[in-house]
């Protein structure tokens, strides 16, 4: 007996500048679709309709328009960049459809017709900067790609760091895809910053990490690197030596030990091969499709209003842990984590939040004075500890 079909739009740029990540996301969406279609737990099946806008911003509009008119989809999973999401939002708002958006982004948006499954800025950049201030340094050198993610991340870093009495030592930006980075590596080596925040993306980041590793090794110095975008497949691309030791913030790492994730990784490897590793955006795309399927099941309908209501506060034990949609802003409660990259293209998690954190896309609950006071206190404690050990030595 075949289950009734529900058309599902998948919009990923399998070709173009960020094809590698988009292919991972599409693979993950199709894996979730197959699991749902084969599962007895869902009394319907998804019929995926794939569209490839080729990374061309204007083509996202056409792709979604076509999915809605021709394939009659009520729900679309896709987009990776903010520019592409901004193209899709007017159509889903006008036609009252839902876009399920897997990628983390810089925040400052909240559409009734988008379910934001990726992390909000309070899940990614904020815990990472807090960790840096508490345990590494309060002065930081920032390097990133010249686009909205870096601009906004750097702004948040600057706000938090300066409110805690620290300094932004430099802010260097490279055009997307730029690989002429020797002058910046030379500057970093010359200034030896106590911390380096890397928001470069793609090839620029890989080339920079390799060159910096070589230069720091030659100079015999170590500079802690922080990132809130590095993922497992990228560690491989950077190379074994140069990719180790980077402190990274993310809602998902392949190494999460929970049974849901170990089972997910097992199914992933059975499907894509032992060498293949699910990454944060891929996992998040899988979660998008699962959240959608569960909301449709709960609503008993694909109707957008019913599905949105059914998705709200409905907990799903996903590979990245418990996750649910906050109906206040359509972003997700999820668990921020910090990890250090280690040998073997993996991350070792050293901190995670006690419980899933409420999404704060406008960072309106970011309490800068509290962070500043905390850092002051931790510095005082360090001074106390130094004094205490000094006393012990005297005794």
């Amino acid at each position, binding site marked *: 007996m075949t289950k009734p079909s529900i058309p599902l739009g998948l919009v990923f740029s399998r070709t173009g500048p960020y094809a590698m990540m988009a292919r991972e996301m599409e693979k993950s969406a199709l894996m979730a679709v197959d699991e749902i279609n084969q599962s007895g737990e869902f009394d319907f099946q998804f019929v995926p309709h794939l569209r490839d806008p080729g990374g061309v*911003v*204007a083509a996202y*509009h056409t792709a979604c328009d076509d999915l809605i008119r021709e394939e009659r989809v009520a729900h679309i999973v896709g987009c990776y960049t*903010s*520019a592409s999401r*901004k193209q899709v939002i*007017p159509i889903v708002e006008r036609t009252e459809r839902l876009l399920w958006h897997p990628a983390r982004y*810089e*925040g*400052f*948006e909240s559409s009734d017709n988008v379910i934001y499954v990726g992390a909000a800025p309070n899940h990614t950049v904020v815990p990472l900067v807090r960790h840096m201030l508490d345990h590494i340094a309060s002065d930081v050198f920032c390097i990133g790609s*010249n*686009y*909205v993610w870096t*601009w*906004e991340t*750097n*702004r948040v870093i600057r706000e938090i760091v300066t409110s805690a009495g620290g300094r932004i030592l430099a802010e260097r*930006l490279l055009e997307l895809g730029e690989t002429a980075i020797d002058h910046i590596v030379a500057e970093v080596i010359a200034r030896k910053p106590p911390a380096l925040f890397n928001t470069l993306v793609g090839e620029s980041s890989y080339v920079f990490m390799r060159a910096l590793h070589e230069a720091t090794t030659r100079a015999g110095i170590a500079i802690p690197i922080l990132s809130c975008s590095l993922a497992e497949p990228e560690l491989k691309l950077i190379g074994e030596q140069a990719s180790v030791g980077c402190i990274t913030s993310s809602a998902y790492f392949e190494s999460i030990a929970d049974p849901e994730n170990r089972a997910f990784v097992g199914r992933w490897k059975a499907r894509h091969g032992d060498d293949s590793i699910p990454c944060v955006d891929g996992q998040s795309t899988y979660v998008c499709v699962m959240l959608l399927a569960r909301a449709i099941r709960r609503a008993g309908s694909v109707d957008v209003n019913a599905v949105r209501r059914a998705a709200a506060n409905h907990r799903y034990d996903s590979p990245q842990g418990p996750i649910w949609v906050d109906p206040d802003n359509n972003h997700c409660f999820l668990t921020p984590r910090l990890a250090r990259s280690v040998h073997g293209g993996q991350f070792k998690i050293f901190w995670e939040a006690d419980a899933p954190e409420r999404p704060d896309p406008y960072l309106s609950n970011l309490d800068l004075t509290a962070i500043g006071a905390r850092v002051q206190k931790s510095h005082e404690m360090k001074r106390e500890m130094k004094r205490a050990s000094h006393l012990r030595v005297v005794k």
Partner: protein
Amino acid sequence: MTGTSPFAVRGRSALMVMRDEREMSILRRQLGRLGMSVTEHDPDDLAAPVKSVDVIVLDADSIPIEGDAASTWKVDTPIIALIGIETPSRLKWLLDLQPASFLVKPLRSAGLYTALVVAFDTAQRRLDDAAHIERLEHRIRSRRVVFSAVLQIMRHHALSEQDAFALIRQTSMRHRTTIEQLCADIIAGGGMPKRTSRTA
């Protein structure tokens, strides 16, 4: 307020600094309906446009925050900013350009006329304010001249400061000139000038 009415948009010229063809076509059509002429400028082209226009419609998202691109658009011509990304980092960049008005993307046929009227009105008010400030600054710069002239009249005519200033003020009104100009004449001529042809 001086200048053309901000509601009169027919015959004015607009420059589009945009990338998205769909939004450009909406704008072209709508500006055409309002009787305005339209020229285009590639956002990647850092050279300032040669021809002067009445208003610039600038898609903020098409220009990187860092680099020299923004300085091309720090001009006296009023700017209508098109806003897609509402992050504080982008908005801070935009504030530096002092947009006279804005529109939120995606563009629709409604809203453009309001944005144009607000932009033209803002531009005119800025011109008026600048002229007003210039006049005030001129008066501040003339303070020393006025002070010297008052002293001179006090000495020459054995008057109190109050009476000397009153005399200067009355004379300037009679001569239909400003106090500052009369004071400059007093200092240049070594005394109160005779009535000149300036009086009609």
